[in-house]
């Protein structure tokens, strides 16, 4: 092959995610794929022809990824946990009939008992009930913040990557500005100023501060995909921009975004807990693990269950999403190698 140095993708990020999603190279990969027999080339039926017939089915890259995912125990464990959490979030009534707001100061800081399996906190609220009900806030914020930031980030980043030029320059500078805002501090300032503790305000703010991260990934991923020969080939056929973007670039650029999104979910959940802990996130009457943790700080030395249960619930939830993200990343990674 001639000595042509193709420049690497115009991407200052160059994250690990990117190198893993480089396009397939012809070495071991070609050895792994099935050999098909060209009809003219092979006269007599030989053993190879039999093997060719066995593997008749077409296999898309998504099917390959799913097959990998299925075989990964981490995927199953985390999925089950997440499923369980979703049920808890949607229908907490299935798990407890005590209201998390039925607090009686005279019951304050009791240990585990029949009426209060996890005990009570310093306000006299049932910890078990609060732990169950707290799932809803975390999952809601996590899921919607992820959805929001992925949509906004992918669209803006994707457009910047696709069109380049001024779009890209402006967007990159805006992204830089937003990146410069320290997430936690910014959230605190904003939320204190707005002085509302509605779930949707918190979601909105997480989206506002979280989209640049996704946009960066999306931009780089689109730029890489855009430089592939098959996109040039489609242009050469006369494909318009929308076809290029939707049919060619997006399906090939979406994988890194999925991975980052899944991992971001976990971090949004812990972010919400942090904000609520600091008092700027959710507030009573909304039930949140962060609020519980905040209440527990003063008293946990005498009553460790006030800290332990919400902390454990939070950790398990975040861990489940991060594990899922990991499994998804592994499944999608080698496909595009």
């Amino acid at each position, binding site marked *: 092959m*001639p000595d042509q140095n193709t420049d690497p993708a115009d991407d200052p990020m160059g994250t690990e995610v990117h190198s893993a999603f480089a396009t397939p190279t012809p070495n071991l990969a070609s050895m792994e794929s*099935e050999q098909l027999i060209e*009809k003219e080339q092979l006269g007599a039926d030989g053993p190879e022809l039999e093997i060719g017939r066995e593997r008749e089915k*077409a296999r898309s890259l998504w099917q390959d990824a799913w097959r990998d995912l299925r075989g990964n125990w981490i995927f199953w464990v985390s999925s089950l946990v997440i499923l369980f959490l979703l049920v808890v979030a949607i229908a907490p009534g299935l798990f407890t009939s005590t209201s998390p707001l039925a607090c009686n100061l005279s019951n304050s800081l009791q240990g585990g008992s029949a009426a209060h399996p996890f005990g009570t906190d310093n306000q006299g609220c049932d910890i078990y009930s609060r732990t169950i009900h707290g799932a809803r806030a975390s999952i809601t914020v996590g899921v919607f913040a992820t959805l929001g930031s992925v949509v906004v980030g992918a669209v803006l980043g994707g457009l910047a990557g696709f069109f380049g030029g001024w779009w890209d320059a402006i967007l990159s500078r805006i992204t830089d500005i937003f990146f410069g805002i320290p997430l936690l501090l910014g959230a605190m300032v904003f939320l204190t100023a707005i002085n509302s503790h509605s779930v949707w305000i918190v979601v909105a703010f997480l989206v506002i501060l979280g989209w640049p991260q996704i946009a960066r990934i999306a931009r780089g991923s689109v730029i890489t995909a855009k430089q592939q020969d098959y996109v040039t080939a489609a242009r*050469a*056929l006369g*494909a318009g921009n929308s076809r290029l973007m939707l049919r060619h670039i997006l399906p090939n650029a979406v994988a890194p975004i999925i991975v980052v999104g899944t991992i971001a979910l976990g971090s949004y959940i812990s972010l919400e807990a942090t904000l609520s802990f600091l008092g700027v996130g959710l507030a009573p009457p909304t039930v949140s693990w962060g609020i519980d943790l905040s209440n527990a700080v003063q008293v946990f030395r005498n009553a460790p269950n006030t800290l332990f249960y919400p902390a454990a619930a939070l950790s398990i939830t975040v861990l489940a999403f991060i594990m899922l993200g990991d499994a998804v990343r592994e499944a999608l990674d080698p496909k595009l190698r």
Partner: protein
Amino acid sequence: MAEDHDASPAELRIEAALERPVQQGEPILQIRNLEKHFPLTQGILFKKQVGAVRAVDGVTFDLYQGETLGIVGESGCGKSTLAKVLMNLERATSGQVLFKGEDISRVSGRALKAVRRNIQMVFQDPYTSLNPRMTVGDIIGEPYEIHPEVAPRGDRRRAVQDLLDVVGLNPEYINRYPHQFSGGQRQRIGIARGLALKPEVIICDEPVSALDVSVQDQVINLLGGLQKEFNLSYMFIAHDLSIVRHISDRVGVMYLGKLMEIGTDEQIYEHPTHPYTQALLSAVPVPDPSGREGRERIILAGDIPSPANPPSGCRFRTRCWKAQEKCAQEEPLLAVPEVFRGRPTPAAHDSACHFAEDVDIVGAG
């Protein structure tokens, strides 16, 4: 008479030109002084141009119907950029590309789409030129989706399977994905895709460089067969001189953005008159241990100059053993050299050298 807001008169004229057959003796493609410069800029937000990479720096040649024109040259000579400009994947900086007499170098919109139907491309890398997430049927059928007006009426699937058959692949594999095929097979798929719209000109950009030796010949034979069957005109860009000779009727040699020499394959390979061509031919390794002794060996000195700053006068002079003062002062024209003009020798073909000399490098003539 209702005015057609969709197409300007120019566009309509181009579309009409694309439809009609080529006149007798007229070239199907005429490239005139084509230039493509890539600006070099400085600055982050407000870019200032500080120079230009002159990838294609004034190229003129013709392509006739049914013929194969080979373009050879080393890396950095601009042949790939030339291909992209001809395909309208890059906008020419100046110059003309005349397709059946109409300038297609600056078209857009509907006219551009029409041009795309007539000039198609085969890409170099079979591993990146097919969308890994589309089935083979989708890939080959995409041209029909983009140009529904020329798509076959009725069964498109049938048409795609016919194309698979034409390139020597089993039509039953229409639902498979590219990664399930070998390199040579993928290249065939790319060729099938290029054929879908029944183009008249196909530009092959190093179509076999990335393939194994034993598979290269299969694809070359396929291209040759298709040319005969569909009366295609090929522009075959490559760096492998042996393969280019085999498939080409005429050959052009590029260096640093310009054509150094152009002629029939016999003229170029057996009677090269430009020193660069001679050096290229002498450097081609001979698969014969004793054959090497018969051949004159020319080793070029130095590196290829930067295309942002080509040498004055003849751009090959910095590496040429014949270079004299005249070469730095006056750029030689691509024309039949004076010493051969009017003589009935095969050396009388276009060559851009002040001191052209007929040297038989290959040792065959």
